[in-house]
């Protein structure tokens, strides 16, 4: 090709060129190349002429080969004005002269049309496929499921849609275009890697259902549940090049499913836990399905027919049950509480609750319900009722104060105390109405803060009666009541006691004490107290007045100072001995009064015991008996003198009588003499009575004298019996005497005693005719007993017959004569002689009176 731009004349052409350009040498040589191959007018895009010129110029100017690849340059079809589309790869290579200048260049086009077209077709195909894929991807991207396309053995993430990213909680940039496990390393160790490898190897799709995935979503480890498909991507050659993962999040579904299951389980557990039995009663057939718990509550270890359940319901509650069943059909539900009697006879309260189910015609089909053992509840309710009764009947006020300043509850006693009429009124009356402003201030400043802080307050405060307005003291014991759950205070509970009765009682006690003090001071009797060791702890004003002493002067043993020195020791000894025996203390002594006079006193003291029975001392009195002593003395003197004076006329009467009797006898006036003799015996009785009176006064004044000497005891008795037998009338005095020997005593006094006993025996046995006199020696005693078969003496009276002026009483006893002094005198005589006297007797059978004298005196 010549460098003669712009013609570029063809200098020569080889065969290949001619063939490829559909030309002949003749046509081409010497001709401009562009004239030979003009531009195709239909081709306005390839710019083939400009590109060719550019390549020529490049080769010429740069003196280097210039190549154009795959460009279009259409060739005219000979004989037509048509062009044939051709593609070329052409090199233009400059050829130099000896000077190195370009003299021509070799234009070497290589027809690449076929190759180019093929490439073009291939390109189009690829494009089409790419478009298709693009569309598929876009479908994937928008699909409402998570989709990932994985490539190769690394599971390179080629595509991932937003849903998948959301599902796994990852960002696109950290997930896309990298191996799958790089994006979620925490999942690699789980089962999914193996599954993917399997699909890759086998080419068989894998379907996963409700699989659990532990995954970090948005920085938080979570458990997901997914349904997924691993679909292999199989190439034409059967090779598996990748996997399409389609996944849907079913976590919510699973969760709700589990939750439902859990809820069911919980319900079942709850039913078990509260001991609920369940039942399903078929109303058409009467059959009933029950739970194990139901059977248990009814006391059965196994399921039993319905009738069995009905049978164990307490007879008194059967009606409750049947009534409930009748009403259930109408009401649509059933509720009743009855007692169930178990086999062991224990009683259990049960509550039946249920719902009635109907068919479309309104016919009742079944009742489904629950059964609960409410024995404890019932018992608790009963306890609560008792507690409520207790509160209701309490005499103290009990209240619950809400924190808003009103009482939510006040018991009956409290309502009465404060003047409330209704419970409604209680709830709407602020505590401000129940106190004066000052007292309310105290409550608000002292009571409530302390209850709130320390949990309790107790003390005295004042309340006001709603109606009367009376302000009165109460002892309030209040506590804070906390909510058991939150622990926050919710109320204040209070128990208040009306202090008025207590104060009144205190006042009454004080008054009573004052009164007692006044009385003890006013009493004409001295009063004293001692402790358990006998030390004086109290004397009253009277004693202090008598002795002109101070209270403290008398404590301990100091009281003795006031006692006449001759009586002091005796009074103390008696007190010490009575104290030792815890006995009733009684002693007479003379007391030196402050005015110098001497007064006789009788002091008595009663042993005191505390509630446990422990001796705590004496409480006693001391009465001035000077006057009595004086009177007693006067009486004794009087009786003594009177008796003595009486004896004088009696002596002369007796003397005259006896002289008269003798005269009558001498004159032979036997009848008159007999009368006089009777008169004489009456005088003897009078003499004896006077003698007794004299003896008693002597005993009382301690002037009974004894002239003790030895005498033959049995001898004395024989003499006495001989004498007494004369006056014994129908009674025979029987002697049963053992040898007793001598006795040392006052013979006259002893004979007085024996006479007394024998005459009594005769006197009190009017319907019998014998009296037995026995003597004997027992141990160191000489004993005499006089037995009669008369009216006898009751046991109580036996103890008293030896008392002064005592006479056995009864229907007839008053008809027996005598002053009742004989046995008293006898007993005093025997005691003074150192002996003892006693009686055994049975009413209606007679009595045996005995005395015994110490035997050691016999030998003296």
């Amino acid at each position, binding site marked *: 090709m010549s460098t003669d731009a712009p013609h570029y004349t063809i200098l020569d052409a080889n065969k290949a060129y001619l063939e490829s350009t559909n030309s002949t040498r003749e046509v081409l040589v010497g001709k401009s190349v562009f004239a030979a191959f003009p531009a195709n007018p239909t081709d306005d895009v390839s710019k083939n002429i400009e590109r060719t010129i550019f390549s020529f110029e490049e080769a010429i100017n740069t003196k280097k080969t210039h190549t154009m690849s795959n460009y279009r340059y259409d060739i005219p079809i000979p004989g037509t004005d048509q062009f044939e589309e051709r593609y070329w790869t052409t090199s233009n290579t400059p050829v130099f002269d000896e000077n190195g200048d370009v003299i021509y260049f070799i234009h070497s086009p290589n027809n690449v049309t076929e190759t180019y077209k093929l490439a073009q077709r291939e390109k189009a195909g690829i494009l089409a496929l790419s478009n298709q894929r693009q569309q598929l991807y876009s479908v994937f991207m928008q699909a409402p499921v998570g989709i990932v396309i994985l490539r190769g053995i690394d599971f390179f993430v080629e595509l991932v849609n937003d849903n998948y990213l959301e599902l796994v909680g990852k960002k696109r940039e950290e997930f896309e275009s990298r191996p799958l496990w790089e994006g979620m390393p925490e999942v690699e160790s789980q089962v999914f890697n193996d599954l993917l490898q399997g699909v890759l190897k086998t080419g068989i799709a894998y379907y996963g259902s409700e699989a659990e995935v532990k995954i970090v979503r948005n920085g938080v480890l979570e458990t997901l549940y997914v349904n997924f498909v691993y679909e292999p991507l199989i190439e034409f050659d059967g090779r598996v090049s990748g996997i399409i993962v389609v996944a849907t999040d079913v976590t919510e579904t699973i969760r709700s499913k589990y939750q439902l299951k859990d809820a069911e389980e919980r319900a079942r557990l709850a039913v078990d836990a509260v001991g609920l039995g369940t039942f399903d009663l078929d109303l058409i057939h009467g059959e009933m399905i029950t739970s194990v718990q139901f059977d248990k509550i009814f006391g059965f270890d196994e399921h039993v027919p319905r009738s069995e359940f009905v049978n164990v319901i307490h007879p008194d509650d059967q009606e409750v049950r049947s009534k409930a069943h009748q009403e259930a059909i109408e009401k649509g539900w059933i509720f009743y509480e009855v007692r169930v009697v178990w086999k062991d006879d224990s009683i259990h309260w049960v509550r039946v609750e249920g719902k009635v189910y109907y068919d479309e015609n309104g016919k009742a089909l079944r009742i489904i319900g629950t059964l609960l053992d409410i024995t404890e509840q019932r018992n608790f309710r009963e306890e609560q009722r008792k507690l409520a009764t207790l509160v209701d009947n309490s005499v103290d006020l009990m209240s619950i104060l809400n924190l808003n300043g009103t009482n939510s509850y006040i018991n009956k006693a409290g309502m009465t105390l404060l003047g409330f009429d209704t419970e409604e009124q209680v709830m709407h009356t602020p505590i401000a109405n129940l106190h004066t402003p000052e007292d309310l201030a105290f409550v608000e400043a002292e009571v409530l803060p302390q209850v709130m802080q320390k949990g309790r307050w107790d003390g005295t405060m004042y309340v006001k009666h709603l109606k009367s307005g009376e302000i009165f003291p109460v002892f309030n014991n209040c506590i804070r009541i906390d909510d058991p759950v939150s622990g926050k205070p919710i109320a204040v509970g209070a128990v208040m006691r009306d202090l008025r009765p207590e104060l009144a009682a205190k006042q009454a006690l004080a008054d009573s004490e004052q009164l007692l003090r006044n009385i003890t001071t006013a009493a004409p009797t001295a009063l004293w107290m001692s402790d358990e060791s006998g030390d004086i702890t109290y004397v009253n004003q009277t004693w202090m007045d008598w002795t002109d002493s101070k209270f403290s002067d008398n404590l301990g043993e100091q009281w003795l100072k006031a006692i006449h020195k001759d009586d002091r020791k005796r009074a103390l000894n008696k007190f010490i001995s009575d104290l030792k025996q815890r006995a009733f203390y009684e002693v007479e002594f003379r007391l030196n009064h402050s005015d110098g006079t001497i007064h006789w006193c009788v002091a008595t003291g009663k042993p005191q015991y505390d509630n446990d029975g422990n001796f705590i001392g004496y409480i006693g009195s001391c009465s001035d008996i000077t006057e009595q002593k004086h009177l007693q003395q006067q009486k004794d003197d009087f009786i003594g003198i009177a*008796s*003595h004076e009486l*004896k*004088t*006329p*009696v*002596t*002369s*009467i*007796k*003397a*005259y009588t*006896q*002289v008269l009797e*003798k*005269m009558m006898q001498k004159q032979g006036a036997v009848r008159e003499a007999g009368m006089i003799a009777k008169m004489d015996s009456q*005088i003897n009785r009078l*003499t004896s009575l006077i003698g007794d009176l*004299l003896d008693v006064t*002597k005993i009382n004044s301690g*002037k009974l*004298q004894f*002239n003790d000497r030895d005498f033959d005891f049995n001898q004395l008795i024989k003499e006495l019996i001989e004498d007494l037998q004369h006056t014994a009338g129908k009674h025979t005095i029987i002697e049963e005497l053992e040898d007793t020997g001598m006795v040392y005593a006052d013979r*006259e006094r002893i004979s007085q005693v024996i006479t007394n006993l024998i005459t009594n025996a005769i006197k009190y046995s009017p319907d019998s005719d014998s009296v037995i006199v026995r003597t004997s020696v027992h141990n160191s005693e000489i004993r005499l007993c006089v037995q009669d078969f008369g009216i006898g003496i009751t046991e109580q009276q036996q103890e008293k017959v030896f008392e002064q002026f005592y006479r056995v009483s009864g229907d007839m006893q008053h008809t027996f004569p005598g002053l009742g002094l004989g046995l008293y005198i006898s007993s005093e005589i025997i005691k003074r002689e150192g002996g003892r006297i006693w009686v055994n007797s049975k009413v209606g059978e007679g009595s045996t009176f005995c005395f015994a004298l110490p035997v050691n005196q016999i030998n003296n």
Partner: protein
Amino acid sequence: MPENKKIMIADDDPGIVDAIEMMLSFEGYEVTSTLTGDTVLNMNSDYPDLLLLDVWMSGHDGRDICKALKQKQETSGIPVIMISASPELKRSAHEAGAEDFIEKPFDIEELLKKISQLIK
């Protein structure tokens, strides 16, 4: 047996003196009596064979009289029976020198027995 025996009664009660006098006279004794102790102390002749002497006489204690009589040689041999309503005085009567004692009121037989024992 009691013939010519003279008994003196000394008691301040006229009733007793009279009754005993009558009784002893009835028994055959010669009886003198007095209501005062002075009479007894002042007698110097015509002594009785036995004296019944009351212990408590107005103005005089019979025991003192008895002691006085027993101290005088002339009267010391006269047996004395003292009489009293109080049996306790028996011992002191003996101590005063009385030969015997009898309690008022007495049985006449007992008195006569005592008298006859003392008057041989």
